[in-house]
């Protein structure tokens, strides 16, 4: 009986694959950044991240960003991207059409997504690019040259 039950279990495990094991031990493997991207972000940024997702319609006031444009994306530090993905565009002085994903994805998932976006844009953060874009928008970065007094106290 026991043997029969066990072999049945094993057979069903083989047939159904790892996902549908009823009492599977341990947490399932975390999806990769690409898998998360292709489920969630694809809706607006498109499968390649070029901003041509199905939700990119003409009437949207701000189009989903082309994440493969290295020159444009260089203006965002990892910190900027993490904030935007967690809290939405509104938190980074961008359009809130970019939704907040912090409740949906874990901190690790979002860290991996930032690395994934870096791969898509094949770019590194360039403080000069940030300054240039902020100047174009009529906004200067917050006293980037001066020492930040808060930094001292928080240490």
């Amino acid at each position, binding site marked *: 009986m026991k043997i029969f039950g066990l072999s049945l279990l094993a057979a069903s495990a083989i047939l159904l694959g790892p996902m549908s094991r009823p009492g599977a031990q341990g947490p399932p*493997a975390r999806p990769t950044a690409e898998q998360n991207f292709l*489920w969630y972000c694809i*809706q607006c940024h498109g*499968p390649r991240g070029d901003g041509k997702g*199905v939700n990119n319609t003409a009437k949207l006031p701000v189009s989903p960003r082309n994440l493969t444009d290295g020159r444009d994306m260089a203006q965002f530090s990892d910190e900027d991207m993490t904030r935007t993905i967690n809290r939405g565009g*509104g938190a980074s002085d961008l359009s809130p059409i970019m939704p907040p994903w*912090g*409740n949906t994805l874990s901190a690790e998932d979002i860290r991996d997504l930032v690395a994934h976006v870096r791969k898509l844009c094949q770019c590194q953060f360039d403080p000069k690019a940030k300054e240039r874009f902020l100047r174009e928008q009529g906004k200067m970065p917050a006293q980037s040259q001066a020492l930040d007094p808060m930094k001292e106290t928080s240490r």
Partner: protein
Amino acid sequence: MSLFRLLLSRTGAAPLGGTALLALLGASSPAWSTERGRDIFFARGCAQCHTIQGPEAKVPVTERHKLKGPTLWYAGSKFRPGYLGRWLAKPQAFRGVRWGTMDKGETSHPALPPAEAKEVASFIEGLKDPEMPTGVVPGWGDKLPRQVLRRARILFQKEQPCYACHMVHIRKTVYRQAVEVGGFTGPHLIDAGLRLRPDFVVALLKSPERYSPNGRMPRYGNQAFTPLSEQDLIALAAYIATLK
């Protein structure tokens, strides 16, 4: 068979009279209709694509393409009475992308003859989530208090642009004519007022892990990254209920 027992226990009729009684009550009794609806649901293969037991288990993103249709385990708490009967007789796509894909297009859905649609609807409307709070959204109907409407519009259009993924019909716009605006990946909300119960919209926004663990919609609610208050959620739900 279970219906037989049900009727017997309700009426206390003798077993022999049971069949006659069934025929007599057949057309009029809602319980009978619900039971027939259940039989049709399984006979027509609806269960191949829809689960009717919940809560739905969370599936990893890599496996979600295997889901064949939305769960119906809380359909009675979700849909307005009457909607399902109409929809099942004449299903119309309510999403701008084909199910499970990001391809623009419509998912075609099997239709039921009107009589069967009514019975199946009566069965599905009985599938409720007893834990879902009701009476949350006041019965404002189409006349929302100004402040509520204002807050809802700001949320829906500016702060958390829901229309980025949900198509809506806006009457007064900068285009000076009514337009349909919005994305394709979420169900359109053009006639959501005829379709969804406002209490469900609040419940969905508050507990997405219960009502849509396998969806693509970002999780909102009063959580770390989206501190939407109860009032905000009620305003959104009441606003969506006016769309028709």
